[in-house]
């Protein structure tokens, strides 16, 4: 064997790679043309992109922003020498109707209210979503927001949301009062009953009475005035908001070892998840009033929100169940051994952790529901898609198709895309966050 010892006396400096490895060329070689198959794919994709853009761009590039009717658009295009079916887009309809597509029929002088409501929504969510960047005190605002938002949107007497809030306070007081004397189970049931009685029978007259003495309020806006994107958002946000507590209860029920409770929860969840949303919307539009006591009458948007809430709750329950399942049993045992009772353990230990794990799932549920709000157009509500029909029923815009659909698609895309990116960011943050 030859002498194998070798010592390098001088270290070699780093060298630049061969020209074909770096720069645009190297990049292209590695990312576009590594092998025959890949090159073919690249060429094919570029052709496809070209084909789509070549069809789309000339059509979209159309100076018709100021036209006031389809005929006007055609005239402008005609003057430019562009003829034919796909000669150019008619952007005038967007110019004319974009406000309506966002706000529906909400009175223009009150536009600030939905805008404020949705901005404040961001503020209310921030303690949950950016827990490390905002003061923890803000959680109080989060708690109040569910009462603030309906008032901002629907207006009316301030006493109504305050009295609803008072229901919770009364229930809590009753709970504490009875707890001193009897078991926590009885206290809980009593609290629920007290709250329900308050909300159903006492709250209305009292709110009205107080309003007559101290009339503070905003002009009421009926839900029939809701439309467009604002309607979709309202249905989505309210339904998700309400579905959260219901979903928690359902998830706990599904996890519990009480057979009847479990069966009821599983039955509900599987039923809702087994039928299409549109059938539930038909229930909202045709059956819900039949199920209610004679004479009750919610307007259709309320009914849709009720059904959307039930729908979202079933999905929410599954998301939260996933969060609960991700918690180690040690957490339950730790709580038990300290003497915390079931509800205390849930409230202080289990739920805060389970909900945090579930946030990405909750966001996706919201995105799904938000997209599904377009189905309300089928039962005659004027969400963006429903409005597009109304718009096309005007003599000026009769015959416009792509511009409106495209614009609506874009609106949804922007909302959903940013939310889904955000939830991805959250997922990453949860994975790397402490513990």
């Amino acid at each position, binding site marked *: 064997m030859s002498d194998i010892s070798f010592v390098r006396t001088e270290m070699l400096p780093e060298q630049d790679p061969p020209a074909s490895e770096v720069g645009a060329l190297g990049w292209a070689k*590695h*990312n*576009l043309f*590594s092998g025959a198959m*890949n090159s073919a*794919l*690249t060429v094919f*994709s*570029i052709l496809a*992109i070209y084909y789509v853009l070549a069809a789309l761009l000339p059509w979209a590039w159309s100076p018709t922003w100021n036209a006031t009717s389809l005929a006007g658009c055609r005239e402008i295009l005609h003057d430019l020498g562009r003829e034919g*079916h796909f000669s150019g887009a008619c952007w005038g309809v967007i110019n004319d109707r974009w406000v309506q597509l966002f706000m529906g029929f909400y009175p223009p002088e009150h536009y600030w209210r939905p805008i404020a409501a949705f901005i404040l929504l961001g503020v209310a969510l921030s303690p949950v979503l950016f827990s490390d960047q905002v003061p923890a005190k803000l959680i109080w605002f989060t708690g109040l927001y569910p009462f603030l938002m309906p008032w901002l949107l629907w207006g009316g007497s301030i006493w109504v949301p305050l009295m609803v809030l008072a229901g919770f306070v009364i229930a809590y007081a009753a709970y504490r009062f009875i707890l001193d004397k*009897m*078991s926590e*189970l*009885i206290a809980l*049931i009593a609290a629920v009953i007290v709250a329900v009685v308050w909300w159903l029978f006492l709250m209305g007259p009292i709110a009205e009475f107080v309003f007559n003495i101290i009339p503070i309020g905003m002009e009421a806006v009926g839900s029939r005035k809701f439309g467009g994107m604002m309607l979709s958002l309202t249905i989505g946000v309210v339904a998700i908001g309400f579905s959260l507590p219901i979903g928690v209860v359902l998830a706990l029920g599904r996890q519990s*070892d*009480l*057979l*009847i*409770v479990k069966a*009821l929860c599983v039955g509900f969840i*599987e*039923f809702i*998840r*087994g*039928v*299409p*949303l*549109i*059938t539930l919307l*038909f*229930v909202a539009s*045709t*059956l819900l*009033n*039949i*199920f*209610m*006591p*004679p004479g009750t009458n919610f307007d259709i948007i309320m009914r849709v929100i009720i059904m959307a809430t039930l729908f979202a709750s079933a999905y929410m329950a599954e998301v939260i169940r996933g969060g609960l399942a991700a918690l180690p049993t040690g957490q339950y045992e730790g709580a038990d051994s300290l003497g915390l009772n079931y509800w205390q353990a849930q409230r202080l230990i289990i739920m805060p952790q389970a909900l945090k794990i579930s946030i990405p799932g909750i966001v996706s549920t919201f*995105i799904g529901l938000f*997209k*599904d*709000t*377009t*189905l309300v*157009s*089928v039962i005659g509500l004027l969400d963006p*898609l429903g409005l597009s029909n109304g718009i096309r029923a005007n003599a000026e815009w009769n015959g416009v*198709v*792509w511009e409106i*659909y495209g614009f*609506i*698609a874009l609106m*949804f*895309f922007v909302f*959903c*895309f940013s939310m*889904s990116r955000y939830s991805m960011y959250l997922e990453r943050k949860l994975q790397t966050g402490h513990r």
Partner: protein
Amino acid sequence: MTTLSDPPQESFRLSQLIYDTRYRSMTIQIIALIGFLLLLGWLFGNTAQNLADLGKEPSFRFLSEPAGYDINQRLLEYNSQDTHLRAAFVGLLNTLVVALLGCITATILGVAIGVLRLSSNWVVSKLMMIYVETFRNVPVLLWIVFVMAIMIETMPAPRAFKGENPASEMMLNDSVAVTNRGVYVPEPLFTNTLGDVHLFGAASMRFDVSLDLLALMLVLGASLWGASWFRKRADKIQELTGDRPKTWHVRLGLIVVPTAVLLYVLGFHLGYPELKGFNFKGGTHFRNSLIALWLALSLYTAAFIAEIVRAGIMAIDHGQSEAAAALGLRPNRTMKLVILPQALRVIVPPMISNYLNLTKNSSLAIAVGYMDLTGTLMGITLNQTGRELETVLLTMLIYLAISLSISAVMNMYNNRVKMVER
């Protein structure tokens, strides 16, 4: 502490209902049950009261009355004098058809896109990313109307095929016509047909089974069985000698020849679509509503499936393919023997829920006038008879049954796959 006296032999006390863990759960359950029954009773009471006020009595008699409307897309023979029940049945079959077709194409598309998204080719992977993001972030209803609008506006009308100098021509040697009413393709016809058997007599559920088709399926089934026997033999040979004999030509022959012979015996020929009067006649017609719905649902669901597939493949450690490569396995073998079997376990469960979603989303057929269950039973029947309660509840129950059976079947598969892995 002094000695413990035995606790008094306790008799049942009321407080035990709440404090004793044994009775406590009973108590809670009974309260829950009572609450549920009360709610149910309340709903029933209200409904009965309201219906009485409206002068309607719940009854399903309308189902056996003539429907009075026509359905264009139908797998069964049906006319406007058939009952509402049969119309619903026709609609149900339409739902199942579009759901089945949608699931198949969504899977194919989704798998392709998911794999391409992982491609090292920058353009391709970005393009696929754009596809996925675009489709998932826009409501499916919008996609359905969009695809329908594209079909209608960009395809030629049948009229365009008319005249001396037609603006459009049929494709594939005059056998396929792509129009904005749908696609017409040649249909299989048999000169020596064996006829049909009629099942269920005159009931609303009656349907005809073509014996030709039945015979074909039998022969094809037998051939497939033969082919799979052949493949198993190849496996055996490989086990014994290590070399895998090439069997594809034998297997192909086994499948093709008997079928071809049977087709010849039956006098198989194609009926070509032909422009007659207003429409193409003859051939099989895939209506634009079916195509639009099918395409839109497939494209939309494919975006979700692509993400599932991508996640499934990415969940497989890179070391697996490296180890396979180091053992000398070629990439396609690696995929088949190492990556896919593992990825499938990750992929299948979320895939099931996407199939379910697709099936439920098919109820949006209403937007393009495809007469599925929602369009017939919960659509025109509801509108003509005014029986909201009955039609809506019936529709929900049917969808529920479909959903539950899909998840049952898929869960079975899922459990089987799981078993293999301990």
